């Protein structure tokens, strides 16, 4: 990883510290700065409220030319998060062809928060959950809350 990328990550971390978005906590390891651990509270008013989700952000060596890779370490019932042990998500600005260097991690985190409030059905990675969200909202909410209780407490 180049010095420029490290500098940029440091800078972004500084910015994140200066104004951490509400309901987030960032664990940063000086030794391995390409891997951030984020603790995110389920946004109030969403089905995930009350849950605590652990996310992992991994910066590629080509950062900021390549997007960071975001994955949920806590299982979450969400159409945009893959329902496996990877918990990967990839949409919007996280997509390699959409990503632009001026984008910042804060923006990524905000995007994730907003997705927890309102999933993006059209860009779902888990079509079954997306379908449920579309057609049977009650069932979806029940399942999501169930999972929050089970995994994210």
């Amino acid at each position, binding site marked *: 990883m180049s010095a420029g990328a490290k500098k940029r990550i440091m800078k972004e971390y500084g910015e994140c510290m200066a104004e951490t978005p509400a309901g987030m906590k960032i664990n940063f390891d000086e030794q391995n700065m390409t891997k951030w651990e984020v603790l995110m509270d389920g946004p109030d008013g969403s089905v995930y409220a009350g849950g605590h989700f652990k996310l992992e952000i991994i910066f590629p060596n080509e950062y900021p030319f390549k997007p960071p890779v975001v994955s949920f370490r806590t299982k979450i019932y969400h159409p945009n998060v893959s329902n496996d042990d990877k918990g990967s998500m990839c949409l919007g600005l996280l997509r390699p062809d959409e990503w632009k260097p001026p*984008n910042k991690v804060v923006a990524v985190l905000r995007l994730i928060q907003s997705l927890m409030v309102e999933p993006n059905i059209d860009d779902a990675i888990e079509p079954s959950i997306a379908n449920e969200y579309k057609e049977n909202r009650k069932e979806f909410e029940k399942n999501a809350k169930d999972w929050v209780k089970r995994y994210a407490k």
Partner: protein
Amino acid sequence: MSAESINIITIDFPDPDRTETIDDHFDPLPVRSSEKLLHLIPDHELSNHQLQSNESFYFPVPNIQTLSSKGVERGDDPYGLLYIPALQTDECRDSEKQYVPQNATRLANLPANSGYALIAVAPWFSPLCMKEYFATARNEPVKAFIVYQPNPNSTAVPPETNDQAWALNDGGSWQYNNQFPTYAVPGASGYLIASKMSDYSGNMSTVPYGDSLKDQFEESDYVRLWAKVTADSGTQLPSLWVFLVIVLGLLILIIGATSFCMHVVQRRRRNALRRRVINGEVDLEALGVKRLTVPADYLTKLPVFAYLGESERGEKSMSQASTTVDAETSLKGVPLSRRSSAPEAPSTTRASAIFSQPTCPICLDDFEPNESQVRELPCRHIFHVDCIDPFLLNNSSLCPICKQSVLPPGYCPPKITNVMVRRERLISRRRTQNAPGHNHSPGNIVARLPGAYDSLRARVGRTSGGRRMFSAPTRTQSRPLDIEMTSGAPPVPAVQPAPTATVLPEIVAAPEPTRQNTAEECPPEPPSQYPQQRREWARQRALALLGNRHAPHDAEEEEQNRSRWRRGLHKIFPGFG
């Protein structure tokens, strides 16, 4: 190398002891080196010494079996005077009498110490005596050994070399110990030769037609039997092998011809692609065919200047920019202010570009007025030289912000590879397949969607193993133009009169992030209701969406990641698969 024929003839040659002068045709001098012995009676001189057939013995031996071809080189057929080697033990000498006439030619009947090439003849009547024959022959200038079976009535081809009849109870080592080849002839032939050898063993007066021979030759001359073995070339392969070799040869020929044709075709395609790239019909990087990089010499031509600092116009823009959190929002001011100023006046242009872009989008550091060295790309975006140069040199030729190519139109990379040709063809094929009116597959939802091209992108990306085929969607290129043309005021992202098909750039931090984006980016529907297929579809899609953190970024890398045999296959058959 087996013997094709053995011809036995009768020759006359002078007694070397008596010959004082060297004969032109015949050199009877005793030769010490056995090498030279072979040449003592060269083929072309043979006729001089061969006796007239009506007064001599001539016998082409039929039905020869080669027992050992040791020491026979190609084109070096053994020949020599026939003789019966001496036996060592009395028992053998006694038993020999049944098979060999008493006065058959022995070594003693040939000129002493002459060193002539010899061919030994002996009956194979017992292993023990045979060993004695061989032992004697090994010490004499024997070029070949002719054995015959003791049965005087046999005319059939003698048994093969591994037959029990030829066993000497030594595990077959006699074949290796003998430095000469061994041929077996039928018993009848053997007896005939042996009896003729007894005819031609004495002096001129005792041989058949001796009287008439005396008239032609010196009386002291020797008249003896002489044999020449004609060995085959030894390259005659068993028919199965010949067949296999022919088949193999044909296969290689076919493969070679096919490979050649494919190379020619591929070469033409490469040239065609190059032409189209130069004509601007194909944009390699926009199509994702090839990730281009900017050559160093071209990069140095891009303007570099010190960041100028702020002006009164800048302050306006700056205040605008500082209110927006997102860096990109501020960047949108760039084309606007550029448009409003005269593009021909570089200083104004730059100034306006700069104050609307106060930070380097790569390192996020603010530009320091009059200090920071910035590079301006053709799209007017500016970056720290240190930040943008490595990216353009090593990663991509597209502006990191607007994905507009830095390279001049019609730029063609020096090398068009087969991989590029293949991808370009794949992509254009997909495009024509999915063009409206060709939508014959019922599951093909893609073409019906408004953003068919973009969905297609995903499909193409997926088919190529989760790789992203299109690094820059074409629409991104038109975006700045739209903004420029339609809005004249300082940039407020909300006043975006562009048609909805155009993606708004600020998906970044916008509270409702991907609404408009997804209208176009809408993925193909899950293919069917079967859970298995749906799961697979989801997996594929996840790969397509996520995929390329580990995926290769370039055609060459992809090529390197292929297994070796596939690479080899592609070398031989370019354009295959």
